[in-house]
């Protein structure tokens, strides 16, 4: 038996015209993470999934330079992650997380860029995941996210500013005594004016403060050397004597003072990661990787107090919509199969369609230009989403008008293109073959499953084409869609659920499975920490059969169940994500057994945030997020085989944030929502 990489689906749009060029209309970003400002006021951005660093003028009107390609050479990256401008020298540090190393790039006023040093990959250091980086007083500190210490803790690594290894910090000892504080998957780093290091300690959802000797510096408001009670901790920035924590509250940036006192929050964000102080007064650069944008905001942090929330003002946002033909944006799930070698998608008026695409692109640019600077952040994000939504609707109407459709809708691979609010499909699985096939979807649509009723349901238009069941993470609504041949689109057949904690409600539903023995719909109701079993009656009406599970870590309990699959006997296998295990239940919802435990490893039953599961021919396939591995098990839990790879090399099947996998006819389809493509793997038994 073996599992190997085969191909990918999702057009890459990373070509730039001759530079410098306008940022409008030329800048398709793929999950940008880090940013910094150089000594000449220019803005540098890590276009992470495109494996390059871009440089803009200070107004972000022009792209001035692009540096780097995929690879392991001196001018190459595999996921350039965080950027840091040296305060005195013309250097920019780039953490090259997929190559386990750090670059120092030297630049001139004329923006000639050359690599001067690569460090961290030497054997005596062997970084395992260089992420956040800070520099102070001739030293550099790097957060080594996936380093595994003696107790599996991560570490900080100290170098001289020109990259000579000095020492590691494996634990933080609080200055007021007590147990040492350990790091787990530290990401962003920042410094205050005294040179103290702030660490976003992702695995514990805390922000830790220490000095360069690893001594924990206590926050007076908490008596601890860390801030906790955060929803997420994936970045931290100390700006104007405030600690800014993107994602500390959902869709917001939490703000604390230097004593650890919560001051309030900045709202109107999606999933911000990196905040960088800009040269202008009260101006911040904020990356929104999943919106594929870099934004410039203004806010007076000194006036935020009383635990209130407030909007920032958006001065500028760059990054085109990721809606070119075949392009995917935050693709989350897949269902169906690729069985054809040729596409029979008929575009009846390609010239007209190209004209429409061009007009929509112009419209998009016009709307952006017309959006006045200084809009509140929540209104800016709403308007951007609304613009995209309007375009999806216009494109749908054009497709219907032109009768553009797939000739064999029963024979497609369907992909949830969540960031573009639509389903896309392909017949031949070629990299640029995805085409839209649905009316605009609700924002937050994530999981899909296909359902073929044992006999046609009343009102079912084309029983040859499976129904598609779609879960919506934000609204808790599950929609069952059917194919309307006249329109050539998917339209709603029935709906159920809705947000809440009641029996018939759902909260953050993710993966969906169909029980092959009776066509029941099983939903990983992750926010309610349970599994829900629904059924369609003979009249097509949905009703709840039962739910099982509750929040906890004992058997019979879940902590964020993210996906489910059901085998030919009706046995249910569930990824219990935050408990790092697979839970097995019978058809009545009775716990049978579990397997797996927390731990690093790509070829064992160790898991770190197992996220997705499917099965075929008696084998289970598990996507193990932090280990970036697809692991194959027998249904009794015996490890068989795996594929693994961390990075953004599309020729190698590497993974960054793999989401809900799908297995069909000896192929594993794994959408990666950060790399914006669906990887296809083959396995042989």
């Amino acid at each position, binding site marked *: 038996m073996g599992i190997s990489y085969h191909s990918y689906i999702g057009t890459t749009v990373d070509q730039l015209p001759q530079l410098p060029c306008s940022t409008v209309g030329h800048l398709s970003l793929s999950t940008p993470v880090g940013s910094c400002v150089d000594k000449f006021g220019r803005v540098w951005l890590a276009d992470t999934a495109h494996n390059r660093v871009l440089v803009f003028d200070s107004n972000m009107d022009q792209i001035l330079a692009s540096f780097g390609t995929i690879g392991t050479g001196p001018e190459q990256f595999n996921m350039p992650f965080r950027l840091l401008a040296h305060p005195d020298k013309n250097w920019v540090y780039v953490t090259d997380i997929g190559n386990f190393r750090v670059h120092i790039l030297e630049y001139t006023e004329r923006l000639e860029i050359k690599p001067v040093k690569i460090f961290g990959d030497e054997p005596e250091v062997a970084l395992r995941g260089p992420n956040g980086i800070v520099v102070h007083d001739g030293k550099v500190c790097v957060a080594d996210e996936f380093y595994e210490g003696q107790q599996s803790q991560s570490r900080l690594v100290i170098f001289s500013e020109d990259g000579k290894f000095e020492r590691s910090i494996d634990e933080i000892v609080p200055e007021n005594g007590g147990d040492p504080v350990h790091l787990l998957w530290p990401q962003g780093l920042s410094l205050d004016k005294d040179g103290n290091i702030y660490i976003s300690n992702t695995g514990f959802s805390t922000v830790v403060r220490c000095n360069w000797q690893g001594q924990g510096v206590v926050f007076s408001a908490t008596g601890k050397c860390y801030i906790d009670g955060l929803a997420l901790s994936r970045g931290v920035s100390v700006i104007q004597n405030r600690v800014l924590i993107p994602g500390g509250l959902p869709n917001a940036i939490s703000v604390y003072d230097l004593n650890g006192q919560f001051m309030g929050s900045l*709202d109107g964000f999606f999933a911000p990661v990196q905040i960088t102080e800009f040269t202008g007064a009260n101006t911040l650069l904020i990356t929104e990787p999943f919106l594929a944008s870099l934004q410039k905001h203004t806010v007076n942090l000194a006036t935020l107090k009383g635990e209130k929330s407030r909007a920032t003002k958006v001065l500028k946002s760059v990054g085109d919509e990721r809606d070119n033909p075949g392009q995917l944006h935050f693709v989350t799930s897949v269902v169906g199969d690729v069985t054809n070698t040729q596409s029979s998608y008929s575009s009846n008026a390609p010239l007209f369609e190209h004209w429409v695409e061009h007009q929509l692109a112009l419209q998009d640019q016009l709307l952006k230009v017309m959006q006045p600077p200084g809009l509140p952040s929540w209104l800016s994000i709403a308007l951007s989403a609304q613009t995209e939504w309007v375009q999806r609707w216009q494109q749908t109407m054009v497709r219907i008008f032109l009768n553009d459709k797939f000739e064999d809708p029963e024979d497609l691979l369907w992909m949830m293109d969540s960031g573009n609010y639509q389903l896309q499909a392909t017949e031949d699985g070629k990299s640029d073959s995805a085409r839209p096939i649905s*009316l605009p979807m609700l924002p937050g649509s994530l999981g899909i499953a296909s359902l073929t009723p044992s006999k046609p349901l009343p009102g079912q238009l084309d029983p040859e084409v499976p129904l598609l069941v779609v879960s919506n993470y934000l609204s808790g609504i599950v929609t069952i869609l059917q194919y309307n041949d006249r329109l050539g689109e998917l339209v709603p057949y029935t709906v159920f659920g809705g947000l809440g904690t009641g029996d018939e409600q759902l909260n953050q539903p993710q993966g969906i499975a169909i029980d092959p023995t009776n066509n029941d719909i099983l939903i990983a109701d992750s926010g309610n920490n349970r599994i829900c079993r629904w059924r369609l009656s003979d009249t097509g009406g949905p009703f709840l059969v039962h739910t099982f599970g509750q*929040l906890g870590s004992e058997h019979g309990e879940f902590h964020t169940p993210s996906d489910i699959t059901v085998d030919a006997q009706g046995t249910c296998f569930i990824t219990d994500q935050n408990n790092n295990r697979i839970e097995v239940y019978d058809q009545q919802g009775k716990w049978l057994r579990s397997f797996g435990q927390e731990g690093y490893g790509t070829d064992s039953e160790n898991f770190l945030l197992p996220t997705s599961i499917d099965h075929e021919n008696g084998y289970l396939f598990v996507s193990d997020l932090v280990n970036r591995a697809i692991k194959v098990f027998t249904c009794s839990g015996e490890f068989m085989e795996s594929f693994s790879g961390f990075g953004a090399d599309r020729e190698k099947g590497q993974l960054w944030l793999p989401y809900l996998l799908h297995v069909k006819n000896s192929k594993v389809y794994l959408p990666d929502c950060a790399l914006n493509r669906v990887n296809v793997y083959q396995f042989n038994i």
Partner: protein
Amino acid sequence: MDSVFKRAQGKKLSHRKSQDSKGVCQKSEADSKQLLQQFQDVIKHVEDNAKDEGSCKDALRRLYTSHESSFSAKKVTGPHE
């Protein structure tokens, strides 16, 4: 002392328990109910007017408009905003 993984799991679990007691956001729940009702209205309309393509498109357009308004009403954020 438990492993780092176990302690991290325990910390996240206790945080989650403290958050769960607050329940879901009432406003988000009400918005979701409204959306569900709009879906059901459109589905019924399409069922009753299956042969009238124009009418069905209009109903779908109305559904779209209501979704669109949910953006402008600042409902794009998560359930625990």
